[in-house]
């Protein structure tokens, strides 16, 4: 096992992208040093879901940096093998599916409009968000996880956003479980894994954080 200072994770505590990496590292039992980055550029804080954030998280292994959360997760999967099934399926078709859905999350999941807007715009954002979750529910179908029987790459890409749901529900006056019960079942299933429950922040902290963001935006 590599000594912990061979592996360093630079992250921002509220970043769902960083949490993907934390989950993957925990799944593989990798010891690492965690360094909380003070995100100095305040305006970047406001663009939480924006690709501008691709610089965090950064995984540093043997002194070499790897960027982009999904790419880091794949790197972790390839570098540390355990007896558990790999995070990415070995079957090329399933692997392609896993990558598709992780990409889908990256391109489509953006619910910051729910707290950045009001009135009609907010209602539109809420509807879009629920529609998105319904698409994901369809993909889930009767499967326990997004691609099949095992928790993997696509689930890791998506699950960190679940700790933002509390804030979204309060601010957006929504009940996500009512509209998408299957999705919430999947969330609860993932949260039973220690790798997930230990890596995700308390939703109340995210709520505090979102309120701060809203204040900065003058809402």
């Amino acid at each position, binding site marked *: 096992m590599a000594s912990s200072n061979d592996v360093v994770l630079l992250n921002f505590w509220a970043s769902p992208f960083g949490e993907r990496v934390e989950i993957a590292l925990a799944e593989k039992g990798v010891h690492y040093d965690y360094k909380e980055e003070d995100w100095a550029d305040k305006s970047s804080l406001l663009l939480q879901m924006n690709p501008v954030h691709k610089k965090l998280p950064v995984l540093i292994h043997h002194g070499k940096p790897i960027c982009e959360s999904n790419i880091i997760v794949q790197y972790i999967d390839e570098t540390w093998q355990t007896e558990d099934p790999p995070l990415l399926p070995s079957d090329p078709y399933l692997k392609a599916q896993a990558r598709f859905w992780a990409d889908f999350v990256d391109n489509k999941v953006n619910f910051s409009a729910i707290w950045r807007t009001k009135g009609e715009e907010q209602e539109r954002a809420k509807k879009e968000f629920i529609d998105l979750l319904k698409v994901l529910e369809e993909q889930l179908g009767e499967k326990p996880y997004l691609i099949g029987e095992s928790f993997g790459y696509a689930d890791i890409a998506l699950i960190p956003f679940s700790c933002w749901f509390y804030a979204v529900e309060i601010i957006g006056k929504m009940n996500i479980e009512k509209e998408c019960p299957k999705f919430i079942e999947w969330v609860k299933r993932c949260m039973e894994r220690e790798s997930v429950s230990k890596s995700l922040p308390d939703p109340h902290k995210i*709520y505090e954080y979102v309120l701060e963001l809203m204040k900065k935006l003058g809402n």
Partner: protein
Amino acid sequence: MYSYSYFLLFSGPFTQRVLLTLEEKLLPYDLKLVDIGNKPEWFLSINPEGKVPVVKLDDKWIADSDVITQSVEEKFPNPSLVTPPDKASVYDYALSAPFVQFNGSKIFSTYIGFLKSKDPADGTEQALLNELSAFNDYIKENGPFINGKDISAADLSLGPKLYHLEIALGHYKKWSVPDSLPHLQAYMKSVFSLESFTKTMPLTEDVIEGWRPKVMG
């Protein structure tokens, strides 16, 4: 000049209750944070028992959130936050006319019992659920707030306690309000989203640390 203390354990929700009252009445106030573990001289000289929260109103220092909120209501009756006695009588708590002392005390005490419990079969969880279920039923019929349409003193007293309960039981027992109590869930979200609430709510980590001695002890 008003004072209050934020750094504390069980006065947490009582302090927030006072702040919520001031906020809902749109009253200006000065906050002074006091480290409960290290009370400064000036604080002890005006308040020898070191109680928190404590408020200075008209040059007089008042302790005890019940007395504070009552005094504020008397001095600043608009907008009114009075919870009529008939709304709170359902709960059979200490009533003192004309101000209702609805303070969700059974919810809070059963919550503490459950939080401290080390034996999952000792009935403390059920005791809490019974209280929460009774409240759920009440709110279903009378909501969205305890006094119906509008926020009143009873919500400002109960809300903070429910926030502490949600965070502490979530953290220490991985427990959350069950889906069988949807009206309670909706009530909590409504209260926690109030502007006055978001301005005065405690930090998650402070709540967690505040309850740690009860859990560990």
